């Protein structure tokens, strides 16, 4: 049990550390030349091969940049730990955040302004405008580099599909078919036919995704005024469907407290027939959860016959710690360029990355949305074609149609807070048979509106 003084200590030390580490880059602008050490984020829980591939990329970078020493530090963005790390100054120098956090971090100057350095990169002007927006300050300067973009997708287990008598090459194309397939999987295999993220703001994230797929939106922004739209017919329909799948069909298994890591683990372990998450999830499933490639299938999210129906899209930004001095910032941007970006725009870099990654038996070629234009993306796929080792054929239901779907960005205002408000709503529906959906949405809407009004 944690004591109040301990929690107060955590909050206060975070305050003290941050006040020491605030945006003081100008003071340290004339940092001494010489070897620079840069701590860079590496996903936690990677298997040995993935760590070896990462280390090799570090060695390649250090050989090309003798004055820079790269130190990997395990880091994974989660809503509940990020603030503490940010406030406590324990983040690596280069770390990643979702698109939803970019604008806020820039406005509060909680990350370093690397726009001058990013401008010198050859592809600086090539970012797709929608993608670039998430990493730009009000004046259009790029403080955070978009390294990956995704559209939500429906991931499914081909083996469970087969065991349930479903054709894994013909995954569901409508929400009715999803419900039917989920029931069939649950009945025939005893596993969860369909599972839903519910914790650490991911409940709201996926609920918003489903709301979009039915043509809804969670907020409407008109100038300075933002209106919550959680209590909508589309959101009601989504929750009613989930309620029916949980309570009438009993096709959602027994765990209704999944966070991102937990659901990936359960899916890779063959406990889940279908779930919704980012389309490029294959890499994490393989390197962190030992997914069997033969089990994996992915398809586009079915969209309802509604004018505004679309797929929620987001992505990842690479950012630099606010306290980094000029030398660290320069070295950090070089690392971002080398590790995340160059491979998307430069043939030799793409080949080197793919070759190194494939040699360590790590996935190459998992689908994602382009951060530049589609032509550059298609070109980059050709460069690495011979190294692609992911089961591309099993991904065709997604890759064939991913560009045809209307992509809708995440809610612009108070995104994570609104996701958090939605977490208990979806948890209620999945754990209480008599959950009053109308009342839950009414209360959540009022709470979200109060939040938006506070600004």
């Amino acid at each position, binding site marked *: *049990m944690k004591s109040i003084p301990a*929690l107060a*200590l955590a909050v206060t030390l975070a*305050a003290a550390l941050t006040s020491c580490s605030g945006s003081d880059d100008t003071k340290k602008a004339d940092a001494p030349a010489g070897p620079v050490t840069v701590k860079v984020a590496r996903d936690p829980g990677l298997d040995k091969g993935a760590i070896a591939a990462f280390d090799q990329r570090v060695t390649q970078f250090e050989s090309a940049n003798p004055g820079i020493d790269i130190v990997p530090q395990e880091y994974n963005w989660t809503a509940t730990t990020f603030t503490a790390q940010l406030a406590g100054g324990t983040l690596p120098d280069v770390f990643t955040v979702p698109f939803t956090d970019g604008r806020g971090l820039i406005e509060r100057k909680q990350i370093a302004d690397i726009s001058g350095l990013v401008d010198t990169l050859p592809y600086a002007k090539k970012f797709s405008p929608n993608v670039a927006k998430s990493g730009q300050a009000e004046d259009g300067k790029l403080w955070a580099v978009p390294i990956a973009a995704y559209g939500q997708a429906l991931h499914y287990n081909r083996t469970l599909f087969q065991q349930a008598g479903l054709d894994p090459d013909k995954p569901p194309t409508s929400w009715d078919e999803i419900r039917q397939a989920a029931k069939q999987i649950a009945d025939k295999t005893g596993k969860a036919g369909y599972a839903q993220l519910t914790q650490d703001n991911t409940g709201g994230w996926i609920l918003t995704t489903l709301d979009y797929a039915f043509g809804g939106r969670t907020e409407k922004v008109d100038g300075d005024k933002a209106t919550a739209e959680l209590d909508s017919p589309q959101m009601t329909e989504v929750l009613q469907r989930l309620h029916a799948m949980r309570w009438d069909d009993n096709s959602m298994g027994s765990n209704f407290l999944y966070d991102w890591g937990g659901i990936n683990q359960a899916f890779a372990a063959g406990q889940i027939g279908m779930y919704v998450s980012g389309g490029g999830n294959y890499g994490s499933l393989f390197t962190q959860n030992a997914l069997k490639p033969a089990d994996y299938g992915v398809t586009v999210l079915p969209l309802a016959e509604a004018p505004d129906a679309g797929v929620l899209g987001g992505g990842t930004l690479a950012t630099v710690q*606010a306290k980094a001095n000029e030398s660290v910032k320069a070295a950090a941007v070089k690392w971002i360029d080398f590790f995340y970006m160059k491979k998307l725009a430069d043939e030799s870099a793409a080949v080197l990355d793919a070759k190194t990654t494939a040699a360590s038996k790590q996935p190459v070629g998992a689908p994602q949305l382009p951060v530049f234009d589609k032509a550059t993306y298609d070109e980059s796929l050709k460069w690495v074609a011979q190294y692609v080792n992911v089961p591309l054929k099993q991904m065709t239901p997604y890759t064939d149609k991913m560009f045809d779907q209307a992509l809708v960005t995440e809610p612009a205002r108070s995104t994570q807070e609104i996701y958090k408000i939605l977490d208990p709503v979806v*948890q209620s529906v999945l*754990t209480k048979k008599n959950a009053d959906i109308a009342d839950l949405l009414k209360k959540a809407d009022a709470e979200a509106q109060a939040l938006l009004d506070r600004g």
Partner: protein
Amino acid sequence: MALRTTRAQRAAVRRTPVSWFRSGGLSTVVFLLPLLVVFGLFSWYPIVRSVVMSFQETNLVTPSTFVGLQNFQDVLNDPLLWTAVKNTLYFALLGLLFGYPVPLVAAVLMSEVRRFKGLYSALAYLPVVIPPVVAVLLWKFFYDAGPDGVFNTILGAVGIGPVSWLQDSGSAMPALVLEATWAAAGGTVIIYLAALTGVSTDIYEAAEIDRAGIWRKIWHVTLPQLRGVLLITFILQIVGTAQVFLEPFLFTGGGPANSTTTVLLLIYDYAFANSLGGEYGMATALSIMLAVVLGLLSAIYFRLTRTWSKS
């Protein structure tokens, strides 16, 4: 005797820096200094800083602004606060029902055992040695809601279940209390066992001469002798359960549907759940309110039970 006292008093009045130094005053300070620094820096500074922060609006980056009692108002107007208070009281109540008698019964029974006493003590204390996070992860595994879960497999063998331990608003909190009791009982058992060794054997012998059986000995000798310790562990139990954090944080994240959101988890959520910088002012305001309530509760409790504990 009177003369000596007078001289000592005079010496104290005439104490100069030199005499203070010669009498070893400096070494006292040198010995005391690390303790004062550590205590001040890590214990009192956060408390004072928290009190200040509770009247401020801050994101820990830009300068803070004083907002008076706004944070306290915001906390009191948050509907989730009352859910958290209710849940915490529920946890405390369940903790008292399960957690308070269990170590006492175990300690009394163990004190009656003559053989393998050490082994029983070690077994009772073992859960305390396991790091709390590991214990929670282990129990999470036990609590798996599927029919293949460890507890559900056991229950299934006698035709019960499967039970949605953590996945149901009704059973989540009792499940948390069960684990917390298992994890903490060993420490209390050791305290009771130590207290029991202090009970004079003469009293037991006298009771035996009076032909008192085991239950009469426990009721008329053991429990009255443990009165002081029972009083302390009772208030520690209340204070401890009111500050429950680890179990709901790791088991359920406050869910399902906020059914395990406790006051301390709410404080954590205010401060850290919003990835872009939390409501640190609200978090510290609620911390202070909780500390004041617990302080008052302890004071009232000790005042009410003073007579009883002395008797």
